């Protein structure tokens, strides 16, 4: 009893990983009925860009959170346009938690997301446009401010514009001031817009 000393030979029960770790083996384990097996497979598949579509299709059906997280992390690590185009589909999901998870991981893939950003910002679905602005939060790209300004000038959905205003307050420059003020006119009857614009303008002007 007590502490197991370093000098003692102690067999720590490591759960044996008898499974194959090549691509074929991992893809099979990804569909195993044991969630822990699926989880380890998902994690190891981060080294296999060719597994993107398999990872995405399992993600669509996966009910265990730890497997889902492992798949999302692997897709993020793999990166690239294929992973992004698979992830984007989940922005339209009815499941709030997968939507929000996908937004989060897409924030960690700025290079892969940048090329599709202007499409997302003009999507027919206002929620997708809102989520696109969420993703913009960590995007390093010369057009971010311009995109946000375009949104508040052209978009007619109050919550899309509201989201853009929030971000402009943080990263906007003097260029954003006039468009922001015009937004108050566009949504004259919305106290929130007035509040948010005033806050953003104050932040940009460095008060």
């Amino acid at each position, binding site marked *: 009893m007590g502490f*197991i000393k370093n000098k003692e030979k102690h067999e*720590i029960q*490591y759960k044996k990983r008898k499974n194959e770790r090549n691509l074929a083996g991992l893809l099979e384990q990804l569909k195993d009925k044991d969630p822990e097996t699926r989880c*380890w497979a998902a994690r190891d598949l981060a080294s296999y860009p060719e597994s993107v579509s398999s990872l995405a299709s399992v993600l669509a059906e996966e009910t*265990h959170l*730890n497997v889902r997280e492992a798949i999302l*992390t692997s897709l993020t690590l793999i990166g690239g346009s294929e992973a992004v185009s698979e992830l984007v589909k989940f922005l339209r999901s009815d499941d709030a938690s997968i939507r929000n998870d996908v937004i989060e991981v897409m924030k960690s893939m700025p290079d892969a997301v940048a090329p599709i950003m202007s499409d997302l910002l003009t999507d027919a679905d206002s929620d997708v446009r809102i989520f696109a602005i969420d993703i913009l939060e960590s*995007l390093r790209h010369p057009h971010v401010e311009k995109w946000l300004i375009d949104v508040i000038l052209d978009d007619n959905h109050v919550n899309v514009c509201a989201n853009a205003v929030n971000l402009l307050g943080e990263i906007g420059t003097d260029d954003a001031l006039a468009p922001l003020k015009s937004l108050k006119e566009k949504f004259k009857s919305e106290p929130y817009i007035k509040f948010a614009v005033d806050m953003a303008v104050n*932040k940009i*002007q460095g008060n």
Partner: protein
Amino acid sequence: MHESTISNGDFLKFREFFYRKTGIIFSDSKRYFVDKRLVQRMKETGHDSFRSYFSFMRFQASGEELQRLTNIMTVNETYFFREEYQFRSLVESMLPEIVKNKEKGSTIKIWSIPSSSGEEPYSIALYLLEYWSGINNWDVKLVASDIDTEILRKAQEGIYSGRSVQNLDSRILRKYFTKLPNGDWRISEDLRQSVEFTSVNLNEPGSTRFYRNFDIIFCRNLLIYFDDLSRRRSAEVFYGALNPGGFICLGHSESMSRISSLFKVRKFPDSIVYQKLEAI
């Protein structure tokens, strides 16, 4: 070189951003503390306006500057019985629950990562010896890991300054330490043999592959310095390393709300910890 100042708007912008990233909120009374450090980093990175520094730091791909900034904005000292309330939780809340569901004869495994110079894992060992009656009925395996092999070597040596042991009462000091001629304290050979120190890189998948079946993990004041993706990965490693029902403790200003959704929040009288449940 003119004196850079941080405006009210700058401070609010920074505060909001930092709270979002770390969960730490600076009250207005911390203005001087925060401004001083922001100005310091602005100078050191060659930015003469807060705006350009903020933009640089915010969008940097590597996240290095935010890490460095977080480092200087937080207190990083390590010493024995730091954040002692968690050790109390360990003994009074976590271990009782663990042993209730544990097979007799099996080993209780505790992981301390980062070990740093060893104060944390040795503190755990001391606390269990002194305050947990169960230590006589259970085998306990204590593993302590760090990425820095030099600091691991120091930890294995077990030599500490007076400052590091100042929270220990003299009884414990006398019982488990020897005072060295230069005024430092060396922890006993028996305790040094009670902790297995290993080299681990959380961001390297191969490094943690065989860390499994832990009942308790202490990962305090590490993940706060990681970027979002590394935090996720680390949380996944810890989740896989824990037994169902196992617990993980973070630093006092850290929260899973900035790290991962995998764990269940558990409130004990002395602290909030996180638990891996059976199946989710």
